């Protein structure tokens, strides 16, 4: 195996692991001795340094790790500071409305209403702190229950959940009738 390939393997290993990797393990992958492997890695460290690369390899005890160079921090901060475009998509809004009106509710129940998996949507809403876990349902599998947060009430200008406009039995009846009418219409055609 040529040096170029050995270096490529080390680069790929350190990159994909993210954390520090023991010299012994790297040597095993290359089927080389620890000393030979160390020599190659030292060579790479020098090369990265000389080329002023954005990443570097550091040695921690008997392990090596790939990380960004300190000089790069200010640019990374710039990336981190860029406002993330968080938006409440239709999917998120629908899921939020179901949770708001039917809380406490499990993911399964939300899925039943919407007809599609809601994992992603619920997770996003939790991340946005509009929805939180309320505990677990006392049922097989003990599924998590979700409800809206105080932050939700605040941002929608509601004092308490009682203030949410209620969807009552009459309205449900109305929907049913509408649906039936639509069906009859279809049959008439």
């Amino acid at each position, binding site marked *: 195996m040529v040096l170029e390939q050995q270096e490529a393997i080390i680069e790929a290993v350190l990159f994909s692991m993210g954390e520090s990797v023991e010299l012994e393990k790297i040597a095993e992958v290359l089927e080389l001795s620890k000393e030979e492997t160390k020599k190659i890695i030292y060579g790479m460290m020098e090369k990265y340094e000389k080329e002023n690369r954005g990443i570097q390899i550091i040695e921690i005890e008997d392990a090596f790790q790939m990380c960004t160079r300190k000089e790069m921090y200010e640019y990374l901060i710039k990336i981190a500071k860029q406002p993330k475009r968080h938006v409440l998509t239709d999917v998120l809004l629908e899921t939020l409305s179901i949770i708001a009106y039917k809380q406490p509710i499990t993911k399964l129940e939300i899925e039943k209403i919407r007809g599609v998996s809601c994992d992603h949507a619920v997770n996003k809403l939790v991340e*946005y702190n509009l929805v939180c876990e309320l505990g677990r349902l006392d049922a097989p599998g003990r599924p998590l229950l979700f409800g809206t947060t105080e932050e939700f009430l605040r941002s929608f200008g509601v004092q308490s959940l009682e203030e949410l406009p209620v969807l009552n039995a009459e309205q449900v009846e109305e929907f049913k009738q509408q649906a039936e009418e639509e069906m009859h219409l279809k049959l008439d055609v």
Partner: protein
Amino acid sequence: MELTVKLQVFEGPLDLLLHLLEKNKVNIYDIPIVEITNQYLEYIGEMKRQDLNIMSEFLVMAATLIDIKSKMLLPKEETEEEEEDPRAELVQKLLEYKMYKCMSYELKDRQMDAERVLFKVPTIPDEVRQYEEPIDIEELVSDITLTKLNAIFKSVMKKQVDKIDPIRSQFGKIEKEEVSLEERMVYLEEYAMEHKNFSFRGLLEEQSSKMEIIVTFLAILELMKTGKIFISQENIFDDIFIESRVAA
């Protein structure tokens, strides 16, 4: 050969149909409908034990095939217009399905190739992470009002109502039998001893669920068989009178 066909699982009626066409080495544009229909029916005849839901989809196709077959057997009307081949619609469907099936193999290859690439979890240095800005809920919510949220909820619920199957929704739930026959018999025997003569309807007024009524009726039959009670009815559909035969 036949065994493999039997064991093969098809994704749907079109999948099965394509398989039959390939097996018979026939042109998709010129399906020998009589032969294929027979083979198709033979296959689904062997599927009996399959799930009814899956089966129904295969049966729809069977009906379509038979419909086409009968149209093709009928003598053509002598009209000026050139008649459309009754198979045309099916051919289009098969072609489209075959295309996507073909693409799915292509995708599979690509996925196997792409799987050989590894990604890395974010390793953002702590110094940088501290700068991560919190999510601005005010901005996120911005123009969404409670009224709007309510409207969204209503439309979602309406959608759900639309989806309810008008027939199956009437089926109700199958619940675990809460009353056992033994329990009912003991209860009824005691009741009979206490009341001596009583009417069946009167007894039923206390029962709530259909299941309870059925079990009570079974208990009556059981007790009658063992001679513990005697029943009489004047006319059909009249009330049934029950008389205890057990000495108090």
